[in-house]
């Protein structure tokens, strides 16, 4: 009992330390920032006529096991018009012992509010996602980015004020049964959830823009939450990200996603991710 209390005490202390360091990092973000977040999308769109390609690698640590879950998600993103972006992903992973294709999703975003000023803006967008997945359902968390079949609808608000960008997403997610006769086993009442996120970022380098070929380095923190509307169970994750932009056209994001608090069954909430992205402008 004493040991348990000590363990609990040390857990609480490390959690507090982590909260403190996150709060410190957030406060240290002063000026210069980007809104090209890694795990969420800003309300802004891709340039009209552009096509972006992204390869998302996630290396997640499976709980109560020595296994590593590797997810590979290639994505194509198209700037259909100044207000509409569409994207399509394919999900691959090694969860089922062998590395295989498990599904895909289609995403669309419509920017409905634009309030631009010099070096600032406030924008809002609505988005939707339809996902398909053939893997077995193994966690209460509803994740339409590589785990569940279902749909998501949400809104995004992004504020860029004097080079500080803060973005928030609020969405409703609904999971259905996965393909290959893999049922959603937690009951239909628990198949719906609300996701909400807060993201903030800072441009670290260059101190002053001189040319497009300068490498930009951004630091970001994203807080990702889900509350199941049926069970009331939740999770709260944090993801610090370092992002490099090369030649004002290519991106590399390296981040770590960490569960801060949760009372729902999750298989592999913690792990690294590396995202590579390149945008071709004026393709059509």
């Amino acid at each position: 009992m004493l040991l348990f209390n000590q363990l609990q005490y040390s857990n609480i202390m490390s959690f507090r330390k982590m909260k403190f360091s996150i709060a410190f990092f957030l406060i240290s973000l002063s000026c210069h920032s980007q809104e090209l977040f890694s795990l969420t999308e800003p309300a802004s769109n891709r340039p009209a006529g552009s096509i972006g390609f992204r390869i998302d690698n996630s290396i997640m640590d499976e709980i109560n096991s020595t296994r590593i879950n590797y997810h590979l998600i290639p994505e194509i993103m198209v700037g259909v018009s100044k207000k509409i972006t569409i994207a399509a992903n394919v999900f691959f992973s090694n969860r089922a012992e062998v590395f295989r294709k498990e599904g895909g999703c289609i995403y669309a975003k419509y920017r409905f509010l634009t309030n631009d000023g010099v070096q600032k803006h406030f924008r809002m967008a609505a988005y939707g996602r339809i996902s398909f997945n053939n893997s077995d359902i193994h966690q209460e968390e509803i994740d339409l980015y590589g785990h569940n079949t279902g749909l998501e609808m949400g809104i995004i608000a992004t504020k860029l004020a004097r080079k500080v960008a803060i973005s928030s997403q609020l969405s409703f997610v609904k999971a259905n049964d996965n393909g290959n006769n893999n049922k959603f086993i937690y009951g239909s009442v628990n198949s719906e959830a609300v996701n909400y996120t807060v993201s903030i970022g800072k441009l670290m380098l260059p101190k002053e823009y001189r040319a497009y070929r300068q490498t930009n380095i951004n630091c970001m923190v994203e807080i990702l939450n889900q509350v199941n509307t049926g069970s009331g169970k939740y999770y709260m994750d944090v993801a610090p990200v370092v992002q490099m932009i090369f030649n004002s056209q290519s991106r590399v994001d390296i981040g770590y996603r960490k569960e801060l608090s949760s009372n729902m069954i999750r298989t592999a909430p913690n792990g690294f991710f590396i995202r590579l992205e390149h945008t071709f402008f004026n393709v059509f």
Partner: protein
Amino acid sequence: MKTIFLFIATAFSVALNAQVTKVNLKASGLTCSMCSNAINKALKTLDFIESVVADIKTYTFEISFKANSTVDFDKIKSKVEGAGFSISGFTAFINFKKVQLKHDESVTIDNKTLLFVNIHEQVLDGIKEIKILNKGFISPKEYRKNNYPYSSPGTYYVII
């Protein structure tokens, strides 16, 4: 407002030999070099544009044009908006050759009709800086202050 309507109603176009030599535009809604690059690359796709010089620090673009080309201000605007941003300032440098500017007359250059606002009668000669006041060519705040009535495509409210 009433006087502006009257002004349009009595406007009389004068065809003349004048050439747009350069446009300086300031983009708003962005703070990153990737965004500036999107505008830069979008502008360069327009066939009448010779070159674009971008100042990444101030988000301004100096655009020069091919000789004897017809410059389309609306196409420039839609390229900036297509890249995902807005224009907060649009200044055209126009080379006039002794053009008499009268109070109730507009001036037509290629396919563009310029409605001069708050002018006194004068002769325009040499390169003049013309600032466009139409919606989408200045900040929304500035536009609301003036509140000009809708103008047909290719017609621009301008000040010298």
